[in-house]
């Protein structure tokens, strides 16, 4: 029985693979024209860009070919026909993926051979490209199972591909609201940290692998990624409500997910365009925009202007959970950010209003998280280690926590370097708020002028001998 099944599977795969001959002819013609004939006519050598064009063509053709092969999931008649055959849903899914991977794989391989033979040194983007490409093919499979029509499956593929990016947007939005709660809290600082340390977008989207050329690394990432997508697809396939074929989305849960993500992304975009407002204004704007976006998303997905009670409950619960999450996080962050480290714990303080730094001597650039008090001179970085310098910063911090309202717009970062080796960072954004302007800040700022190390760094031409020498040398 098992051998019979394998033979049958092989025959079916071979049959469908042979059906790809028209697609293969089309792809071959396009590649021959664009990669061989046109460069020949234009007397241009086959270079990296031409190979890339060929890969993009394979990508586009493969995308549509796979999408159309999964079309049986979106037509009642077609679905009824294929599913009534003794060839399971899972077998058909596997076969469709396999055929399209083989189909595109052959052309990618031919281009790779060409690249090796004619354009030495261009082969490094083949592996990351193939990684992205296979991921997209798997996502087409998943999106086709989740969707009830092919056009929506195409959109859902890119939507699913962009989910990590959208989650980043949602995180940024939540954190941005937090910045209204806590003086000294920096949205960009936290997000930069998260993105560089934990939520590695460069790895998620394969950008990292263009720089780090190691096939094993790509496989180490690609295999669990594809396994994950495949397992979700299998799970969805088994629970699919096939009677909903023809609807935009077959799964209610996925429909809510799409509507909820949209209801966060749109307010995020709009609140970024809006002038700064208070936390209450921001939250009201968020609730209004999120509700409207959710409703519009549901109308589009359900193809009906009627909204069901369950859909409203989902929105209400979702908004309540999101706001509660932001508020709880806000209180926690506020407690942390308002906390000024004890004097005896601090070894140095760094002040800067940049987030990117360049060291002309080492010809290297740094992010805010990379710098420390012992790095030597960097433009726009002030390092205070003296008793009076550290105390002045702590006094400034305390004063801003009590009242961040100032008559002009000022942004700057303060990094406390602690004796235990840790760093704690604050971001201050001063502007005229409704509360009374904090003129004490001017007094504290004036006190800085009396601190020697501040003067030394602030006006190096007057106080820093090394800087003077450099300036004189450059003038000569």
């Amino acid at each position, binding site marked *: 029985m098992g051998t019979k099944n394998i033979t*049958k599977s092989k025959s079916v795969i071979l049959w469908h693979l042979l059906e790809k001959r028209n697609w293969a002819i089309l792809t071959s013609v396009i590649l021959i024209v664009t990669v061989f004939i046109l460069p020949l006519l234009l007397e241009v050598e086959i270079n990296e860009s031409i190979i890339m064009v060929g890969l993009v063509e394979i990508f586009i053709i493969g995308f549509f070919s796979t999408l159309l092969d999964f079309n049986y999931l979106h037509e009642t008649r077609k679905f009824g026909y294929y599913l*009534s055959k*003794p060839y399971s849903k899972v077998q058909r899914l596997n076969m469709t993926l396999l055929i399209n991977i083989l189909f595109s794989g052959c052309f990618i391989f031919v281009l790779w051979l060409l690249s090796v033979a004619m354009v030495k040194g261009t082969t490094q983007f083949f592996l990351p490209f193939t990684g992205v490409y296979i991921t997209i093919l798997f996502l087409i499979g998943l999106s086709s199972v989740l969707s009830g029509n092919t056009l929506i499956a195409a959109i859902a593929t890119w939507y699913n591909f962009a989910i990590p990016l959208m989650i980043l947007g949602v995180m940024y939005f939540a954190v941005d609201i937090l910045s209204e709660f806590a003086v000294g809290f920096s949205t960009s600082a936290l997000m930069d940290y998260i993105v560089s340390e934990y939520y590695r977008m460069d790895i998620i989207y394969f950008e990292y692998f263009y720089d780090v050329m190691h096939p094993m690394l790509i496989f180490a990432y690609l295999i669990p990624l594809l396994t994950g997508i495949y397992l979700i697809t299998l799970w969805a396939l088994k629970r699919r409500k096939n009677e909903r074929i023809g609807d935009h989305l077959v799964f209610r849960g996925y429909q809510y997910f799409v509507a909820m993500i949209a209801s966060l992304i749109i307010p995020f975009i709009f609140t970024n365009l809006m002038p700064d407002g208070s936390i209450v204004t921001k939250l009201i704007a968020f609730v209004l925009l999120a509700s409207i976006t959710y409703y519009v998303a549901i109308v589009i997905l359900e193809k009906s202007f009627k909204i069901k009670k369950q859909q409203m409950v989902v929105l209400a619960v979702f908004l309540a959970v999101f706001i509660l999450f932001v508020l709880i996080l806000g209180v926690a962050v506020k407690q942390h950010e308002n906390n000024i480290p004890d004097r005896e714990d601090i070894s140095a303080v760094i002040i800067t209003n940049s987030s990117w730094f360049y060291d002309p001597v080492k010809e290297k650039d740094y992010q805010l998280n990379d710098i420390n008090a012992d790095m030597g001179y960097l433009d726009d970085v002030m390092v205070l280690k003296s008793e009076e310098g550290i105390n002045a910063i702590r006094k400034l911090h305390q004063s801003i926590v009590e009242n961040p309202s100032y008559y002009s717009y000022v942004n700057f970062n303060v990094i406390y370097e602690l004796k235990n080796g840790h760093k704690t960072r604050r971001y201050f954004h001063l502007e005229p708020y409704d509360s009374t302007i904090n003129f004490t800040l001017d007094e504290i700022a004036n006190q800085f002028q009396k601190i020697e190390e501040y003067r030394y760094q602030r006006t190096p031409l007057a106080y820093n001998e090394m800087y003077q020498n450099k300036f004189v040398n450059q003038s000569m």
Partner: protein
Amino acid sequence: MIEIKGLKKAFDDNHVLIDINMHVGEGKIYGLVGSNGCGKTTIMKHIMSIYAPDAGKIMYQGQSIFGREYMSSIYYVQDDLFFPFNYTINDLFNYEKMFYPNASEAVFNKLKTYFKVDEQKKLRTLSKGQKRQAAFILAIASQTETLLLDEIVDGLDAVVRKKFWQVIMSEVMDRKLTLLISSHALTELDNICDQVGILHEGKIVKEESMEILKEETKRIQYAVKGDYTLPKSDAYEILQDKLIGKVHFVVLKGDADLFETDLYELNEVLLFEVLTMSLEEIFISELGGLGYGNEEYN
């Protein structure tokens, strides 16, 4: 052969199947009849695992239809036909041969000749009737032990329909084919079905062998002199009672002999005649008893 127990299915808030219980015997022809939109196609799609039930069990040869091994024993022709793009009937037969181990080239060729199908033509270019013939040929040529035919004869001319029934009868007699067929052509089903399931609003309101069904429900016409009293008893149920001129027409379920005795006791009977009902009449009277199609048009 096919056993359905407590099958339930709802499409959102719309309950399409409500506790369906059905039994299709081996080597029998089972006619699934019912009002429009009553759930015939939905039942077939459940048997083919195209839809997943909300509750209930479907068994094929005593086994739950969980795996798909049984699928190579059943061929399903859906109401809304589909043929792969650009396939001729020969292409499709060659494709389907991979799935049905008993598929017969000889039967396929014989049927092509019998129905005079143009094997050069792409299936998508055929007329509705020709497409149905092609689907029917492929179904029979697969030589599966069970066929599910959904509205297969709808839209066909009388000659082709006759050919269809001839082939079906021949297959049933030759190789014990089990057939589940849904159709609105009740007169034709009347002649070939062994069993009938009458479906209405998602429920099987009647499932019986054709023989018992016809024995159980009768049409009686009689005339009485003078005052008329309609007999009543637990042994029979009067589904319909109409007076046309001086003749009473009664559709009766149950003991017709007792009804005759009671009628003679209560009335001076001038004329009494018991008639066998056709499937169509039984269908109308069964659904009429449930309030379906009783509206009068003035």
